[in-house]
């Protein structure tokens, strides 16, 4: 079964298999999902590593991501150019990290990056406010959202610098057993 496909060379498939949590079959299936987003743009033959990207609008219209409030941040974090336009590698990487086989530390690392809106390696109060807005449809008043964000920093900031570093975030994740199953997208 595995030798009949002509999309990738054997080395390419092996590399994908070793670097993601997917099996061969799943990689082929994901490739077809990727291609279905823009069939005229993506060639069927990837053996010579074409340099093509699917623009963010199409990625954000996938049924798995369409309604997700963080879809734009997810695409930005996993894309090469930081704008959400994804190559096949980015696509596979994204769903590999979000699959159920990825370990907690890896997921925590990327979740941290997703919530870090200004990309400064810390989740500060403005990042938290943006997260809150995305999660509550902008319906909390300014005072309320500020209160919530302060409460979050109080609870989670361990080294007392007024913002959450990756360690603070990981410490919180360790104590959240649900995290592995909630930070998960099935495809």
């Amino acid at each position, binding site marked *: 079964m595995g030798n009949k496909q002509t999309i990738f060379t054997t080395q390419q498939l092996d590399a994908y298999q070793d670097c993601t949590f997917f099996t061969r079959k799943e990689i082929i299936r994901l490739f077809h999902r990727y291609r279905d987003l823009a069939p005229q743009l993506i060639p069927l033959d990837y053996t010579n590593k074409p340099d093509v990207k699917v623009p963010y609008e199409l990625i954000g219209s996938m049924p798995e991501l369409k309604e997700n409030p963080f879809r734009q941040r997810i695409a930005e974090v996993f894309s090469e150019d930081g704008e959400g336009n994804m190559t096949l*590698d980015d696509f596979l990487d994204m769903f590999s990290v979000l699959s159920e086989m990825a370990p907690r530390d890896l997921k925590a690392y990327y979740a941290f990056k997703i919530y870090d809106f200004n990309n400064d390696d*810390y989740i500060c109060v403005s990042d938290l406010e943006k997260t809150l807005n995305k999660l509550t449809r902008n319906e909390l008043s300014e005072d309320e959202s500020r209160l919530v964000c302060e409460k979050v920093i109080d609870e989670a900031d361990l*080294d007392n*610098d007024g913002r959450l570093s990756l*360690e603070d975030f990981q*410490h*919180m994740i360790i104590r959240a057993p*649900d995290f592995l199953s909630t930070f998960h*997208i099935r495809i």
Partner: protein
Amino acid sequence: MGCLTPPTMTVKPWKSTGGAVNIAYQMDSEVDYITAPLDQSLPSTPHMGDLLRRRGTRKMSLFPGGGVALGKLGMTEEDIRDEIESEERDLVKELAAMSSRDQIQAIRVLPMSLEDKKHIRSQVLATKQSKHGLQLTCCSSCSEQVSRVSSRLLLEECGAHGHSFRKFAANLASARQALELWQGTMKEVGGKFGTSVLSYFLFLKWLLMFNIFSFLVNFGFITVPQLVQPPNRTNAVNFRGLELLTGAGYFNQSVLYYGGYSDEKIGEHSEYDMQLAYFFTISAYLVMCGVCLIYSMARSFQRNFVLSASGSAWQLLCSWDFSMTNERAIRQRKNNLRVQLKESISEKNQGDKMTMSDKLKQFGIHLGTWFISMGLAAGSCAAVFYLCEYNLQVIIDSQESRSTLTEASTLLLPFVVSLINLVIPLLYSLLSKAERYSGPRTKIYVIILRIGIYFSPLLPIMQMIKLFILFYLKKVSLNQNCQPPRRSGRAAQMQTMFIALLFFPSFVGALSMVGYTVWRYEGPGAGSRWTCCLKPSKHCGPFQGLNSTFQAVSLWMSREDTVSDYSWAVWIFDNMIKSALFFYLITIITLVLIYFFWQVTQGRRLLITLLREQIINEGKDKAFLLDKLQKLQRERQTAASTQRTNTHIPQRFERIQEIEPDYDRDFGGIPGLPHVEENIEPPGPPVASALIQAMIARRQAEEEEEEEY
């Protein structure tokens, strides 16, 4: 061979548009696991933990200003590139030293983009191949290690074989995935309703597997021998359609019932004692059930209750379910979150404003509803009991008269019971609406508790077919009737609750019932004190003619040939099962162990708080030391600049001087004092530039050394 300056990795950071695109800065992750890592997907080799803990850093972050700030620091692109490359070399060396399987897993968990991972992987493979190329032949190295490693590792060492082995493992994994039951349905349900509803269906799946296993055990040991040699039948009854509903008639004499089993010894050459087989199989099965349930309950309890966090931070950052794809569900979740957050804020602000009379009223309502629910449960019990007696009479009549109508009326009891089972939980949810509990979670727990208490006296025993049908029925009803849940449940804790519910009412109840019917204490002399067991039926079943079920075992033990052949078994029976002292001893030891472990838990909890404080203190230490470093550097500059005037170094020092520690911006205030809210503008070089500071200091030291020579 391996390329030392990979263009792909270093070109990207200097794109002027992107900023920190795929560069990730992660300080040495010193989150030391206070308990063992609770994540099972991490392999347990020591390499793995070290790799993750020590080598989080792959590349350094850029400042928000991009290349401009770099220039400020006086560090050239070269320096940073060198640093990155040396780290990469170390990583490749470490990976090349691992076994194939560990290597793959280690590469998979690297926090890098896929392209970078592929690059690292190719370098590792190149390194490995070059290592093997140096040895004389592949096989001679393999034969050296034959004595040490298993044959599978041996295959992995030989590069060519390793490839096909990995292919085999991959095929195995995909085959296993194809066999996963109900995979598509799970995805649908998870997407539409969220992970907590999905947990119920996962629980059903777990129960199904469990029941399949128990079926295999029972079938293999009890039913198969019976089918091989069926007992003599008396009063053969023809099969009529009604039997499918009533379960009586034809089925009475078949293997579906206890009465269909004989008490003879089966087989001529090796005797297969049906009595003993029946008894021991059922006890072994119950014991295994108990062990499984206790084990999974303890594990999920530890995982989900002991260390779980709660509060605003958790709600905001960890609770969002990314797998939901249904728009309505998501909207509702957002509403729930908003309401919960608002509640938590208002609670914090107002405090408990209920007056005494309000509190009393609330308490009264709670008490009332509890009485009603207990009453309902007791009432249904009584109703079922009286109905049972009436039904018994009807059954006896039907056996004498044998008309279809009287047989059909035996169905009255099950019908009524099912009706009650449907109606009462609805009543319970109605009741719970009447109360106003503080949090939605309490409400759910109360309802579940009541339903559990209700079901336990009635002792439902789940069957395999029923589960199958139940699964599909629930799915259909869910799709047709349910909206996504109004409250966002916590999936992991729900799973624990399900298992606990299964264990306490159902299993313990069943166990005590079976124990009651079976056990009988053989006291000294004919008139034994314990006669609480049930006497097995005289005419059918494997235990015909005995005074108690347990007597089968005691008779077997006292037989002559058993004593000589299996003297160890007889000894165990005489001194352990029969003696009460043994059980007292076991109970005492268990209690002591429980107390000991409880103390250990208390100690660990204390340790957790202490370590948390230590983390805070170390953060403060770090800030303090950085500040000192800055001060010392500045002092050095001023001292140096007065001495030297014509070297290129002061340029760099000037640039470094621009980095002033701004307490409010960088350290969030003076450590230890409360700080004012900031963040009107993005912060300057963050404290995370510790590494860069250290590099600067080292560079200066090197330059000073050079100058001295």
